[in-house]
Structure formats: C-alpha cells, structure tokens
C-alpha cells in the first residue's frame, strides 16, 4: 500500500525552500490555493519566484506580503477592478523582478517541463518586443526549424520547484480530480518537482471508483503532499461549489491601492485560517 500524504498546511509549507520557483492553481479570481497562501504568508519563507499564465488575487497577496523576488506571468490583472495593485506597485518600484511572458509560451514551457524535454517550439510570437527581453534572460530563443529552415521560437522548459494546486477532491495519496475549468493545472502538476494538493474534500477509494470514467488530474505518482482544505479557495471561486467573493476581492483591491493590503490580509485572510 502507498503511504498517506495527508499533512497540515504548515507541514506542507515546510516543503518549500527559500528561493524556490513556485506556481499556483487557477486564474485571476478562480481556484487559487488561498488557504495555503495564507499559511505561506504566515511562515518565514522568502525570496520566492513565481510563474503562472494569468494570475490575479493569489499573486497580488503574495506580492503584498513581500514573499516574492521574481514574477513571470503573461498577465497579472484584477480585471474590472483595475491593475493588480500590489504587483503594479512592486514592479514600478523594482521591489520585484517582473518578467512578462505570453500565454502560448507559458503553456509551451510547462509542456516541456511536464515531458522532461529541455524546450518546446511554439507558433506566433515572432515580431513581439517580448522576444528581445526573453532572449536576454535566456528563457526563449529563435532557432531555425531543422526540417524547414524557417524561424521558430523555442521556450526553455519551465519546471517549478513546487506547484500548489487546489482541487475538488483527492484521496490521501494524491489521486485527485479537478472539475470544470482546469487552466494549466494538470501541466503544472506534471512539470513541477514537488506537488502540494489542497483539496475541498478528502475521499476514499470507493468514491474515486464511482468516478473511474473520469481522468485523474493528479496521481499518487505526481504528488508530495495532500492537505484537507474545505473552502480553501476563498475569496476566489471553486466552480461549481462556490462563487468568487467579489465583495471581498473589491475590498482587498481598495485596501491594496491605498497601501494597506497587509491590513486586509491580516483581518480577513489570516483570520480565516489562523
């Protein structure tokens, strides 16, 4: 029998090392692993790098809490509310090293990471000024397709040290299921060196057997830790269980714009989990 991987949020946070590259599940206001992010803010972990396609709330909170030294994302936005308040401030003041990416490239990099290959070619992109930025950083290159001799962009493999993924259900070993929108989460699980699953519900084998025509989002082969975390995405949504709490997100946005993000985080996010 495999060993149970169930642990507490704090024990899971200890799997992260200072300086690690992390990625989180979801998108802007959807399925972010917020209970874990609260635990990470509560810890003494620091100097983390962050990669994701289109992050929002979770990223801004981590930035406000000064946990990140580097951010790589295709877009960081609070959408209708405005620019991601703490990310914008940190990037403009150079408190964080911000590398803009583009969706197709982030996906390609994670694909390479998931497949254990050094890079992945991707269409489009050529002509964007982002190419120069990434060539300098050694994250993209333009090469000649060896078969046609045409120019094509290649993306260096993205292998996060830790992926933290909030799912609908998991067993104690990390066999998990995400319902509805999946974004890049299944690629992140496969690309990362360590995977921490936080789950709305811990289920037994019999429950998974009932769903055995569905594909697992992660298997015990991918996962390092499993944390039981009901409502763990709040205030982001967990479709189809609960909606985004736009009132809370709007309040945070206003606090953060006034430079009081940590006040909101302490009084709301931390109080909920500690």
């Amino acid at each position: 029998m495999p060993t149970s991987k169930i642990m507490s949020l704090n024990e899971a946070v200890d799997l992260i090392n200072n300086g690690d590259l992390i990625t989180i599940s979801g998108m802007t206001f959807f399925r972010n692993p917020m209970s874990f992010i609260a635990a990470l803010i509560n810890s003494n972990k620091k100097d983390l790098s962050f990669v994701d396609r289109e992050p929002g709330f979770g990223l801004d909170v981590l930035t406000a809490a000064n946990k990140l030294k580097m951010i790589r994302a295709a877009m960081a936005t609070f959408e209708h509310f405005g620019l991601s308040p703490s990310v914008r401030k940190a990037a403009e003041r150079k408190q964080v090293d911000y590398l803009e990416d583009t969706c197709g490239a982030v996906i390609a990099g994670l694909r390479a990471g998931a497949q254990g290959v050094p890079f992945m070619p991707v269409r489009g992109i050529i002509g964007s000024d982002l190419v120069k930025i990434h060539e300098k950083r050694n994250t993209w290159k333009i090469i000649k397709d060896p078969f046609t001799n045409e120019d094509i962009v290649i993306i260096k493999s993205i292998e996060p040290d830790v992926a933290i993924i909030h799912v609908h259900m998991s067993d104690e070993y990390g066999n998990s299921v995400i319902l509805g929108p999946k974004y890049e989460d299944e690629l992140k699980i496969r690309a990362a060196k360590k995977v921490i699953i936080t789950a709305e519900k811990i289920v037994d084998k019999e429950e998974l057997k009932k769903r055995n025509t569905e594909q697992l989002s992660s298997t015990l082969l991918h996962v390092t830790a499993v944390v039981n975390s009901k409502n763990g995405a709040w205030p982001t949504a967990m479709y189809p269980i609960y909606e985004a709490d736009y009132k809370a997100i709007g309040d945070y946005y206003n606090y953060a714009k006034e430079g009081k993000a940590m006040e909101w985080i302490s009084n709301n996010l931390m109080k909920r989990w500690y």
Partner: protein
Amino acid sequence: MSARPTDIMIKCLGSFIEDKDYVYHGLDSLLPQLAMVYASLYLKKDFIYHSVAEPFLTDPNQVMVRPSTGDPYSEQGNIATVTTIDAFDIAAKGKMDLMYFGTAQIDEEANINLTAIGNYDNPKVKLPGGAATAYLYPIVKKIIIWARHDPRVLVKKVDFATGNGTTRINNNLKTILCTNKALIEFTKKGPILKAVLQGFNIDQVVSNTGGMKIIVPEKVDTINALNEEELKIINKADPNGLRYEENYG
C-alpha cells in the same frame, strides 16, 4: 434606444463575427463578451462561442456579465469544459477565426502595447501584460481591438510592441480597431477610417490622436445608436450596467 459610445462599441465589435467563426474572448473583456452575445442574439450569427473561462459552446442567452470575464458562472448553458490550452492549440493550427484584444497604445502599423508605458526596464506605468497577445497576434485570422479614442492611446509609435502589427498587415490578416469614437481598419497604406460612431464627426476622430495619422476616404459610414431590441439584448446580459464602469462613455 442608446447612443452611449459604450453600447455602439459593443455593436461595432460584434459586427465582425460571421457564421461558423470560432470566436474567443480573454480576461478583462467585458465589451467583447457582450459583443458575442449581441452577434448571436441580434445579428443571429451562428458561431462557436469560447472563452478563457473555459465553458465550451456557451448559450449566449445565459451569459450574465461579472467583474471577471474568466468567470465560468457568467457563461452557462455550455456543453462541457474545453481548456484554454486546447483553444490556443486550435489557434496555432490556424483555426481560430476571431479574437478580441484591448490595448493601452496602438500605432499606425497596428502594433499594440499592453506591457509598459515608458521603458520596459523602468516603466512609468506597469500595465497588466499582453496575456495571449504576442502569441496569437500573428496567427488569428481576424483581430478586433477595442480602445479609448485618446491621444495617449492612438500614437505614432508604441512604447513597446507586445503584439506585432506589421506582420499581420503584411500577411493581409484583418486588423480592426473599435474606439469610443470610430471604426478604423489597418491596411498596408495605414489606418483607414471606416466609420464614426453616431454623435461624433470626422474631425473629432482624426484630431484626437497622439500622432497616429488616420486616412479619411471619400466615404465614411456612421454606426448608429442602438435600437430598443439591440439594447434589450445587451441589458439582459448586463442588467446592472457594469459595462459603463469601463469608462467609454
């Protein structure tokens, strides 16, 4: 009836959707989301509705806007989830017909900037980022851009080309700009004024740029105010007028 520029922009954005098109909208795309509803329910276009929210074949009758256009609760009546990864692979194979992009700056060659105002390494304003712009801009058949008609936006040369318009224009890919004053098409000759929104004249359009020279042909159309039925369709999906908070008038 509504002559508000926001509503006429939605009509303008929706008018480029054709039957059988595979159409996709991204994050922070309230006007495109409503334009897709308008194209389906008013123009009766039979197209494939998909978005960054990931529901596939959404029922436009059941769209209800929210502060995020990535919200799966806002696009109900779909048949299943299809990921953005899949959507972008479809685009890479040349099968995405229409995508919408917002922008902070656009220039005469249809280069768009969503990255930074000022220098990338030392930005005056750090913008949210181009999301899929750099990736999809060279490969999607029709790109429809929406932006504020403002000298800071319609410029001679963008500070940073997140999306490269020159490649699009050279490859004869349709590239359209709907502002809150006008409809402009980018061509090898430059940006051409195709229509003004009702309530604006040509001079207000061409003089209100930050160096972008807009070519005015002999015939310039007017995009009219919305009739009752058009407005009713948009109001049903946005009963609280969230779209007006985007500040396009």
